[in-house]
C-alpha cells in the first residue's frame, strides 16, 4: 500500500443545517428535504439513498412546507410565497405571493388538482394546479388564529386543519367548517393559560383524524361525529410531526425529545375485526427535536435539529439481516466541499455562506508508521471570502499551481468578480456564467469549465485578469439523453478530456467524444487517469467501472470486476464514494474514499473472494507475513480516519485527510430539551 505522510485536518468547521421539513414522492421514490438555511436536497431512495440534487437556499427564504404534486415540487415559507422548483436547472421556477401572511403549511389533494395553503391570517387558500403555474381559486371560511397544519381526506372532500387549541374540519366543496374539535391544553405545564398548538394532523380514509400537539399528546378523533376517541400522552414536550404509512395501518409521531413513536392499527384480540390504535415501538435516533418525518412502505425516515437524516427500516416489512434492513444515517453531503491545490499545498473549504483558504502545515520529521510528526509550521488561514447579501453562491473553485482563483457567481444582476490572489478585480465575466452548478479548472489553469442550465457545460478561458467565454457543450439531444443537471465535472490532467456526469448519463467530451454506458445507478465520482486515459467511475450502488477512452470500451480489469461481482462487504457500506484520485508514483493504484474509510484499489493484485474478509490495514500489519499475504487483495481498506470529508494526494506525495468529528458538530447544536436521565 505504501507509506504516506498524512495531514490530518480537523479545522474545517463544516456545519450542516437543521432539517426543517421533508416530503416523499412514492412514484419516483424521491425524498425532498428542506433545511433551515433554505437549501432543498433531493435523495433518490431507489438508488441507494443518493443525494442527487441540491438547490441552494436564499437568504430570508426559509422553507416551512414542501409538497409534491405529481413530479412537481412546491414549497412555501414564512415569507408568504409559494414557490415551484425547476428540478432540471436546480432553481426556483416561479413564486407566487399568497397574500395571507406567512404560510405554515401546504398540502395537495390526492388527485393533484388542488393545493391548499394554511396562512397566518386564518385562511385556508385553495390553489388550482395548472400546467405551468398555480392559480388562486378561493378561500375556505376564515378562522381566528393561524392555520398550522393541514390534511386532506384521501377522497378530497374534506380538509382537517390544525390551529391553536382546536382542529377544524372543512368541507372542501362548500368551504364551510363542519366540525370544531377542541384540543385540551397541557396538563403538565404549570401555565394552563398557554395555548396548545396542533402541530400536525392526519386525516385517514376511515374518517379518523389523528393530531399531534404542543402539549405532548397524540389524539385520535372520530371525524364523522367529531368526538375524541383516545389520547396518548407521549412526552412532556411537543409532538411536532406526524406521518401516516401509505396503507394507513401505522402512524408515527416525532417529538421534541428526539424520539419517534409508532402507533399501529391492531385488533385487540386475535380473531376479531375491531381494531384500535395502539402505541407500539419507540425509536430513539435523534438527540434533538424531530422536525420532519416520512413513513414509507418499509421504513421510517426522520430528520430534525441534529441535522441527520435517519432511515430506519421497519423490521416487520423487510427481510431480516439484509442490506435493506440496516439503519442509515446520512450526515454529510454526498459531494465535495473541499478542494486542494496539489502543488501549492492549499485547501479551499466551502461553507454555505463563505469560503476559507488555508495553507497546510509543514513538518520535516521522519518517523515510523503511526507516529505523530512534530509540526514545524502550523496551518494558517489565508483568506476568508464572504458572499454578498442577496447573492446565491453556486459551487465554485479550483486551485491550481500556485494560483488561487476563486469565482463567485451570482445568478442574476451583478457580474461577479474573479478574485485572484493578487486581489485584482476582474470586472468582466461572461453572461453565460450567471447560473452555474459546478465549476472546474483545467490542470494548467487556462480553462474554466462550468455546468449550467439545460445540462450544458460552458467553457471559458482564463488569462491573467480576464475570463472569456469560449463555447458551450450542448448535451446530445434525443430521447435517450435526459435533461438532468450535470453534477460532476472532471477534466483530465493533460487537458485533453473532460468527463461530465448527470444523474443518468456519463459523457466524455472536448468535442463530445463518447457517452459511457451507465447501468441504472447514478455516478458519484468520476476521474480520468492521467497516464492510461481511462475513465474510472464509481456509482451510488457502489459499483466501480473503468472505461478506456481510446478503445471506447470497458477495460479488461473492469470486465473482470463485473464478472466476479463486488465483494458483499463492499456493497454493504452505506456512504457513496465521493472522490477518485490516482497516485502518480504508482499508476495501478486508485484512491477512493467515503465518509467512513478510504481505500486503495490495486489493479494488479487479485480481486477478493466472496469469503475473504476486509481487514483494516492496521490490523493486517499486526498479522504474520504469511497471514498477511493470504489476506491481501485488491481492496485495501483503511478505517482509522472517521467522518472523512476529503482524502487527496498532494504533489509531494503526502496525503491530506480532512475529518469532521461528529462531536464537534453536536457541540455546536443548540441545547436539547431538558430530560431526566437515569442516574444523573
Amino acid at each position, binding site marked *: 500500500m505504501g507509506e504516506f505522510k498524512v495531514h490530518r485536518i480537523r479545522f474545517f468547521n463544516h456545519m450542516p443545517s437543521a432539517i426543517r421539513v421533508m416530503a416523499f414522492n412514492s412514484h419516483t421514490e424521491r425524498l425532498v428535504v428542506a433545511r433551515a438555511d433554505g437549501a432543498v436536497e433531493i435523495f433518490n431512495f431507489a438508488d441507494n439513498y443518493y443525494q442527487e440534487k441540491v438547490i441552494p437556499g436564499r437568504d430570508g427564504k426559509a422553507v416551512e412546507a414542501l409538497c409534491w404534486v405529481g413530479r412537481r415540487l412546491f414549497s412555501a415559507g414564512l415569507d408568504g410565497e409559494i414557490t415551484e422548483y425547476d428540478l432540471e436547472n436546480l432553481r426556483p421556477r416561479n413564486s407566487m405571493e399568497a397574500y395571507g401572511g406567512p404560510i405554515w403549511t401546504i398540502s395537495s389533494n390526492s388527485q393533484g388538482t388542488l393545493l391548499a395553503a394554511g396562512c397566518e391570517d386564518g385562511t385556508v387558500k385553495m390553489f388550482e394546479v395548472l400546467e405551468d403555474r398555480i392559480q388562486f381559486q378561493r378561500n375556505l371560511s376564515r378562522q381566528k388564529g393561524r392555520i398550522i397544519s393541514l390534511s386532506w381526506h384521501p377522497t378530497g372532500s374534506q380538509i382537517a386543519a390544525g390551529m391553536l387549541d382546536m382542529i377544524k374540519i372543512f368541507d372542501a366543496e362548500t368551504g364551510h367548517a363542519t366540525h370544531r374539535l377542541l384540543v385540551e391544553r397541557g396538563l403538565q405545564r404549570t401555565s394552563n393559560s398557554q395555548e396548545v398548538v396542533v402541530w400536525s394532523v392526519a386525516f385517514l380514509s376511515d374518517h379518523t383524524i389523528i393530531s399531534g400537539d404542543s402539549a405532548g399528546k397524540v389524539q385520535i378523533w372520530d371525524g364523522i361525529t367529531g368526538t375524541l376517541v383516545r389520547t396518548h400522552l407521549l412526552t412532556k414536550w411537543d409532538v411536532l410531526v406526524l406521518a401516516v404509512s401509505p396503507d394507513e395501518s401505522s402512524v408515527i409521531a416525532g417529538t421534541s425529545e428526539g424520539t419517534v413513536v409508532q402507533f399501529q392499527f391492531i385488533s*385487540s*384480540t386475535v380473531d376479531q375485526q375491531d381494531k384500535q390504535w395502539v*402505541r407500539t415501538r419507540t425509536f430513539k435516533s435523534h438527540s434533538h427535536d424531530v422536525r420532519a418525518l416520512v413513513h414509507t412502505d418499509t421504513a421510517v425516515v426522520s430528520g430534525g435539529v441534529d441535522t441527520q437524516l435517519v432511515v430506519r427500516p421497519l423490521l416487520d416489512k423487510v427481510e431480516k439481516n439484509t442490506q435493506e434492513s440496516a439503519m442509515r444515517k446520512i450526515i454529510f453531503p454526498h459531494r465535495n466541499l473541499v478542494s486542494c491545490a496539489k502543488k501549492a499545498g492549499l485547501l479551499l473549504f466551502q461553507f454555505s455562506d463563505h469560503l476559507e483558504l488555508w495553507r497546510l502545515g509543514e513538518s520535516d520529521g521522519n518517523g515510523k508508521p503511526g507516529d505523530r510528526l512534530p509540526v514545524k509550521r502550523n496551518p494558517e488561514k489565508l483568506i476568508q471570502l464572504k458572499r454578498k447579501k442577496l447573492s446565491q453562491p453556486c459551487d465554485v473553485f479550483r486551485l491550481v499551481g500556485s494560483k488561487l482563483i476563486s469565482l463567485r457567481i451570482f445568478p442574476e444582476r451583478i457580474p461577479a468578480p474573479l478574485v485572484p490572489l493578487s486581489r485584482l478585480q476582474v470586472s468582466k465575466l461572461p453572461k453565460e456564467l450567471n447560473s452555474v452548478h459546478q465549476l472546474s479548472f483545467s490542470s494548467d489553469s487556462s480553462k474554466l469549465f462550468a455546468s449550467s442550465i439545460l445540462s450544458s457545460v460552458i467553457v471559458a478561458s482564463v488569462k491573467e485578469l480576464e475570463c472569456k467565454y469560449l463555447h458551450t457543450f450542448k448535451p446530445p439531444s434525443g430521447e435517450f439523453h435526459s435533461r438532468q443537471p450535470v453534477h460532476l465535472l472532471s477534466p483530465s490532467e493533460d487537458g485533453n478530456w473532460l468527463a461530465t456526469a448527470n444523474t443518468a448519463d456519463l459523457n466524455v467530451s472536448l468535442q463530445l467524444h463518447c457517452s459511457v454506458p451507465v447501468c441504472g445507478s447514478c455516478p458519484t465520482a468520476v476521474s480520468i487517469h492521467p497516464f492510461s486515459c481511462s475513465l474510472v467511475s464509481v456509482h451510488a450502488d457502489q459499483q466501480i467501472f473503468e472505461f478506456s477512452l481510446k478503445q471506447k470500451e470497458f477495460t479488461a480489469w473492469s470486465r473482470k470486476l463485473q464478472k466476479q461481482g463486488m465483494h458483499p462487504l463492499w456493497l454493504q457500506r452505506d456512504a457513496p464514494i465521493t472522490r477518485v484520485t490516482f497516485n502518480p508514483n504508482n499508476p495501478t493504484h486508485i484512491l477512493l474514499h467515503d465518509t467512513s474509510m478510504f481505500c486503495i484499489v490495486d489493479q494488479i493484485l487479485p480481486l477478493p473472494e466472496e469469503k475473504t474478509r476486509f481487514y483494516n490495514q492496521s490490523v493486517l500489519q499486526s498479522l504474520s507475513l504469511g497471514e498477511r499475504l493470504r489476506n491481501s487483495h485488491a481492496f485495501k481498506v483503511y478505517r482509522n480516519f472517521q467522518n472523512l470529508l476529503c482524502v487527496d494526494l498532494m504533489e509531494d506525495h503526502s496525503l491530506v485527510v480532512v475529518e469532521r468529528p461528529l462531536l464537534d458538530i453536536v457541540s455546536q447544536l443548540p441545547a436539547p430539551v431538558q430530560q431526566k436521565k437515569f442516574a444523573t
Partner: protein
Amino acid sequence: MVEYGDIRVVYRGGSKINFRKPVISNDSRFLLCASGESVKVFSSVTEECVHELRGHTGQVTGVLLRPSNHLQVYSCSTDGTVRLWDFTDGILVRTYVVGYPVYSIYASLNHKEVVFIVTPVCVFVFAELFQLVAVNLPQTPDQLVEARDLSAVLSDVSSNPSTIAFGRGGEYLASVNNLKMEIYFFKKNKSYSFSLREYTKNGGKNTFTCIACHPKDDCVATGHDDGKIRLWRNFKQKKEYTYSTLHWHHSAVSSLCFTPEGTNLLSGGVESVLVQWRYNQENQKDFLPRLGAAITHVTVSPDGALFSTSHSDNKITIIQSCVKVSAVIQGLVKGENVTTGLLVDPRSKALVLNGRPGHLQFYSLQRDKLLFHLDIVQQEYIHEAGLEQFEVVRAAFDASGLWLATVEERKQKSAELELNLKLWSFDEQTQSFVLNTTVSAPHEARITAMCFSQAADSQTTTLVSASRDGHFKAWQLGLPAHTDGTQEWPSWSCDFVGAYHGLVPRCCCFSADGSLLAVGFQEVVTVWNPTSWELLTTLSQPPGDVRNLCFGQLSCSKYLLGSNNKKMVCCWNLLTCSLEWSTSMDVSLLLVDSRSENMAAFCCQDGSTDLFVFKPSEPRPLFSQKAVCSGRVIHAVFTPREVMLESSEESSQWLNRSQLYFLTEFMDLLTFSTKAEEEKLMASSKQLVIDDTVAMTPFYLLLGKHRHEHLGNEESAERTPLPQSSVAIKELLQTPAHVLPATSFLCSMFAKSLLISVTETSFMNSLSVLSAVAVKL
C-alpha cells in the same frame, strides 16, 4: 456404626416462603404459599399461619387454585405427585401420582380437569432440559390416583414458573426461555416463536425473565434482563408482530402480573419498588417504593383487591390495591453469610442470627415465626453494588439474657478496619434491648471470639473478646455513678488485657460456674482465673491450632475439650491438668448442650458431614449419624425444648431436653426429629379422622366436626352450663325481629330469666354474664 432408624434429619421452621408465587384465595382471606415440604395457609389479615398442608415428601414447587372449584388448591412437588387440598379445612382431598418430578403447575378454566406441569425431559440424564406436559386428571373417588395420561405440549421450556402463562381465557399459552418466546394456540394446535438478539445496541441483555398475559386482550408482557418490559401484540403473524417497550426498572424485571380486569400491569425487580403501569396509558405509572428487599414474585388476588409481593429476604408483603401495605408475613431471613453463628436468646428461647443487613433477627422456632429485628448498626442501608457496609459479625448473650454484646465491622479496601463493640441491656419495660455502651475500636484487628461468663450471678458479668491483634480483653460493668443527683447508667469498660507470647487467640470459653476462662492461643490452651486474672496453667497440646474449646457441663465439668486443625480432639482433666484422652477426628464444630453433659461434634469427611453426640466421661458415643447432610455444617446450636420428651430409648435420650439445629453451607436450617415427636405432630394436624363408612362430603365434614366438638364438650361438662336453654332467651332469639316487643320490655324479662341460676353459681359470675348480654342488646 449403628444407624438409628427413628431419628432423622428434617426441615422444621425457617423454610423459604418466597420460593414460588403465592396464591390468594378468591375471597382474598387466605394466602397460600409453598414452604419447604408443605403448603402454608396464611390469613391475609392477621398474618397468622392458619393451616399447614403437610403430605408432600419433596419440596413443594407450585401452588395453584383449582379453576373449577375456588375452595380447592393443587400443589405439586419434586416427589412426583400433584395433590388436591381443601385449604379452608386443611384436608388432603386427592393425590395424583405423576411419577416425574414436577417443577411448576398451570391450569386454566378452558381445559377441564387438565393441569399442565413442567418436568425434566429425561429423568436419568442431569440436563437442564424441561418440557411442558398436559396431565389428564382421572375423576375417580379414590384418594390415591395414578395420573399417567400425559401429552407433551411444548418442549424446551424453562423450569422457572414465571416464564409460562396462559393467555386470554386459556386460548393460548406463552412461554419464554432465554432469548426465545413461543406462543402456542390450542385451537389450531400451532405455535409461533419470536426471538431476540442477545444484546441491544446499548449493551443491555435481552434475555427474557418473566411473562404475563393480558386477561382480555391479546397482549403478552415480557420482562427482560436489562429492565425493559415489552408488550407484544399482533403475534398471530409470523412477521407483522409488534411490540412496545416500557422501561423503568434499571436491572432485571423479576415478575410481572396483570390485574384481573387487565387495567393495570404490575412489575417488580431488584429495586424493591412495585410499579403499577396503566394498560394502554403506559406513561402513567404508580410506585410503591421501599418494600425492603428485592421483589421476586408479584401476584394479584382473583378479585383484584389484594396484591402480594414476595421478597428475596423471605418475606411476603400483602398490599391493598390502593397501593398501601396492609400486612407483612416474614420468614427466617437468610443472608449470604451468617457470621454471628446461631445463638439462643435465654429469655425468649428464640434463635438469634444475622438477618437484614446490620440487624439481628429473633426467630421463634416453636411457632416458626420471626419475632423481631434488632437494629444493631443503626445506619441507613444503602443498596449499591460494591459498597462496603457495616456488618454484624459477632454476638453473645449472657446466661440470664440480660446483656447482649455485638461486634460490627466494616472493611474497606483503602481504609483501615472499623470495629465497634456494642453492649445492649434488656429493658423490662419496653421488652427490648437498649444500647448501653459503644466501644469504638475495641481491638486493633478483627475479633475472633467473644463470650460472656456463664455464671448465673448477674452482678459480676464479664465479657471476654479475643482478637487477631494478639490480645484478649475482659470487659466489666462499672459501678453506677451518682453525679449531681442525675443517675447515670453504669457502663462497660475494659478490665484486663491478656496476651500470651504474642500468639493470636482464636477461641475462648468460660467454665459453667464462671470460675475458669480458657483461651486458645494458636497451639497453646491457657487457663486463667477470671477474678484475679492470673494465668493458672497452660495445657499441652499436640501440634495444630486450636479451633474449638468447650468446658464440660454438670457432672463432666472437670473436663475441657478442644479440637484442632490437625484432625485431633483432646480432652483434658482440669483436676490433674493432664490429657484424659484424645482421638483423631476432623471436627469442624464442637458444641456443648448446657442442659446436659452431652456434646456434639460435626466432622467433615468426603464432602459430607457426620455427627457424633457423646459424653466426655464415656468412651462410647451416645449417637452417631453418617452423612447428616452434604457439604459442611457451618453453625449449630442446642435449643431448649418447651416440653420435655420422655423417650426411653438410649439413642434418642439426648434429644429429650433440647433440640439440635444446624445450618449447612447451602443455608438450610435442619434439625433432628424422633419418631415419637413426628407422630405427635401428625396427630395434631390430623384432628379430623375420616370415617371410611360415610361418604366424604363437605356436609359430612361439617357434621363430623360438630360431633367431635360435642364429644369434647362432654368431657368438660364440669363447667357451669350457660343459660342457653332458658325459654326467655329462646323466645328472644328465635322470634323474628319485626314481631318482637320493645327491647326495654324484654330486658327485664330476660334479666329475670338469668336470675334463676343464682342458687347454683356464684353471684358474681351471673352478674358478668348479665352485663355482657346487656351490652349485646
